[in-house]
C-alpha cells in the first residue's frame, strides 16, 4: 500500500537527517530544485532572498556582474551632493549568509531547452527554473550622437555608480552662472519621476552654491509623473532656477555633439556647461538576446508567476518587463520579486499558484526635507496585464505644509532602509 509506505517515509523524514542517510547523497542533491537568478539588483536580489525565505529546500544561485550594488534610488541625492555614494552601495555578504550562492560573473548565453546558463568566466549552471532580472540597457544612438563615448562627457547617470559620480564632479566643477541641462526620454523608461527629482536636487545645490546658474529640463513628453507636486516645489523652493520645456516647446532632444558640448532639440541648439542626457532604454541584453521581448524592447510576463509568455521555465521581474499599470521602479521590482518567488516555489512544489496583490510607491525628494510620493496597489487583470486597484492610486496632496513634506521625506528614508535591508541585510 503506497500510502502506508509514504506515511512511514514521512515519519522517517520527520526524524531529520535520517532521510539523507537513506539515500545516496548525490541523488538527494538532485532532488533539491535549482533556481538560477541573473541580475542582483532590486528584482534579482529580492527574488533570491524571498526564494530562500519561502523554502530553504531550494538551491538558489545569483549571478551578478558587479561585486557591489549601487542603488539608483537615492542616487539623485549623491548627484545633488546631499549623500555619499558609500551610503547607497551594498555588498552580497548577507545574501550569501542567507544561503544564496552568489557568483560574480556575467551571464552570456542561455539554452532554454537544456536549461543551462553559460557565464563569461566559462562556468555553466543548470536550472529547474530561471529568473532574469537584468534591469535596463541604454539604447546608444537612440539620441543621434549619444553613444558610450559621449556619456563620458555628457553623463546619463541612469545606472548608478561611476556615472553618478561623474555627473556630480561636473556639477562641482561648473562655474557659477552655468547652464545645466537634464534631458528626459519618452516613455517607457525606468523611474518616471526620477529625472524631476534629480532636477530638484541639482537645483538645491545650485541655489546654495551657484545661485546665478540655471537648469533646463528638456522633455520628450508633454506631461510627467507627479508634475503638479514638482512644479509647486520648483516655484516655491527654486524660483527662477528650474525651467521645464515639454516636447511641444522644443523639449525633445534629437541629437548631441558631445565633443562640442552641443545639445540639439527639434528647434534649438543649447550649449550647457553640464549636460545630463538620459537616453531611451530597453530590457537588459540577456533578455533581448533570447528574444523574450519579441522585438518590442520589454518582455511580457504572466502577472501571477512572472513567467515569460515566450519561454516557459524562464521568469522575469523588474525593469525588463512590460509592467502594465505599475511603473518601472525598484519598489515594483521588489514587489514583483516576492510574488515571483512564491509562484516559483508553488510550481516546484506542485502547489496552486496564489492570487497576488502588488504594491508600489515612488517617493521623491524636491529637497532633503521635502518629500512626496505616488502610491498604488495592483493585481493581475483580465487581459493578462497588471492593473491598478481602483482608489489605490494617488499622490501626496498639493499645498501640504512644510512639516508634512518633511515627514514624507523621513518616510522615504525609512522605506529606503527597509527595502535595502529586505535585499542586502
Amino acid at each position: 500500500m503506497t500510502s502506508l509506505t509514504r506515511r512511514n517515509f514521512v515519519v522517517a523524514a520527520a526524524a531529520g537527517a535520517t532521510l539523507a542517510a537513506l539515500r545516496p547523497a548525490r541523488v538527494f542533491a538532485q532532488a533539491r530544485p535549482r533556481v538560477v537568478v541573473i541580475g542582483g539588483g532590486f528584482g534579482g536580489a529580492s527574488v533570491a532572498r524571498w526564494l530562500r525565505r519561502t523554502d530553504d529546500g531550494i538551491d538558489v544561485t545569483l549571478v551578478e556582474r558587479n561585486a557591489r550594488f549601487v542603488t539608483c534610488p537615492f542616487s539623485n541625492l549623491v548627484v545633488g551632493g546631499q549623500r555619499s555614494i558609500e551610503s547607497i552601495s551594498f555588498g552580497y555578504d548577507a545574501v550569501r549568509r542567507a544561503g544564496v550562492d552568489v557568483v560574480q560573473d556575467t551571464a552570456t548565453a542561455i539554452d532554454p531547452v537544456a536549461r543551462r546558463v553559460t557565464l563569461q568566466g566559462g562556468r555553466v549552471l543548470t536550472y529547474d527554473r530561471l529568473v532574469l532580472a537584468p534591469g535596463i540597457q541604454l539604447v546608444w544612438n537612440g539620441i543621434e550622437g549619444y553613444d558610450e563615448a559621449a556619456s563620458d562627457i555628457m553623463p546619463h547617470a541612469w545606472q548608478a555608480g561611476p556615472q553618478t559620480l561623474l555627473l556630480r564632479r561636473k556639477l562641482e566643477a561648473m562655474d557659477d552662472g552655468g547652464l545645466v541641462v537634464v534631458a528626459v526620454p519618452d516613455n517607457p523608461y525606468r523611474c518616471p519621476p526620477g529625472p524631476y527629482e534629480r532636477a530638484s536636487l541639482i537645483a538645491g545645490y545650485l541655489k546654495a552654491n551657484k545661485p546665478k546658474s540655471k537648469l533646463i529640463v528638456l522633455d520628450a513628453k508633454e506631461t510627467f509623473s507627479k508634475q503638479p507636486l514638482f512644479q509647486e516645489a520648483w516655484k516655491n523652493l527654486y524660483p527662477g532656477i528650474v525651467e521645464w520645456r515639454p516636447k511641444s516647446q522644443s523639449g525633445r532632444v534629437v541629437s548631441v555633439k558631445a565633443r562640442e558640448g552641443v545639445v540639439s532639440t527639434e528647434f534649438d541648439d543649447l550649449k550647457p556647461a553640464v549636460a545630463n542626457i538620459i537616453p531611451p532604454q530597453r530590457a537588459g541584453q540577456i533578455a533581448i538576446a533570447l528574444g523574450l521581448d519579441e522585438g518590442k524592447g520589454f518582455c511580457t510576463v504572466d502577472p501571477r508567476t512572472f513567467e515569460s509568455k515566450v519561454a516557459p521555465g524562464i521568469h522575469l521581474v523588474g525593469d525588463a518587463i512590460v509592467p502594465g499599470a505599475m511603473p518601472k521602479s525598484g519598489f515594483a521590482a521588489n514587489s514583483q520579486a516576492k510574488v515571483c518567488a512564491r509562484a516559483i516555489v508553488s510550481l516546484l512544489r506542485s502547489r496552486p499558484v496564489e492570487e497576488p496583490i502588488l504594491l508600489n510607491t515612488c517617493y521623491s525628494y524636491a529637497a532633503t526635507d521635502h518629500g512626496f510620493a505616488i502610491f498604488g496597489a495592483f493585481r493581475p487583470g483580465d487581459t493578462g496585464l497588471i492593473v491598478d486597484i481602483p482608489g489605490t492610486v494617488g499622490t501626496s496632496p498639493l499645498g501640504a505644509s512644510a512639516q508634512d513634506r518633511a515627514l514624507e521625506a523621513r518616510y522615504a528614508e525609512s522605506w529606503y532602509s527597509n527595502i535595502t535591508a529586505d535585499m542586502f541585510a
Partner: protein
Amino acid sequence: MAAATRIRVPATARRGEIMELRAIIMHPMENGFRMETNGEYVPVHIIHTFVCRYNGAEVFRARLEPGIAANPYLAFTTRATESGTIEFIWLDDDGTFEVAAATVEVT
C-alpha cells in the same frame, strides 16, 4: 487665430544637399468629437493645410485632418538649390493663417 510656431532651417547648406526642415504650431486641433460638460460638442477647429515655400516656390504641402493630435509637428526634406528664404504657412479653418520664415545660405 494667433498661435506660436517654431521652425528649424539650417543656417548654411551645400548646393545639392538634402536639408531637413522642421515646423511646429501650438494649436488645439479640436476634432469635433470632444464633448463639453454641458453635453455639447466642441466644434471642429484645426489647421487644415500646411505649405512650405522656398524662394516663393512651393516645395512641400500637407493636408491635415481632424484626428491629428494637438500641436502638429512636421519634419520633411528639400534639396538646397540657392541662398534665400524658406517660408512656412499654416492655414487655420477659422480663416486665419500663420507664417514663419528663415534664411539659408547655400554655398
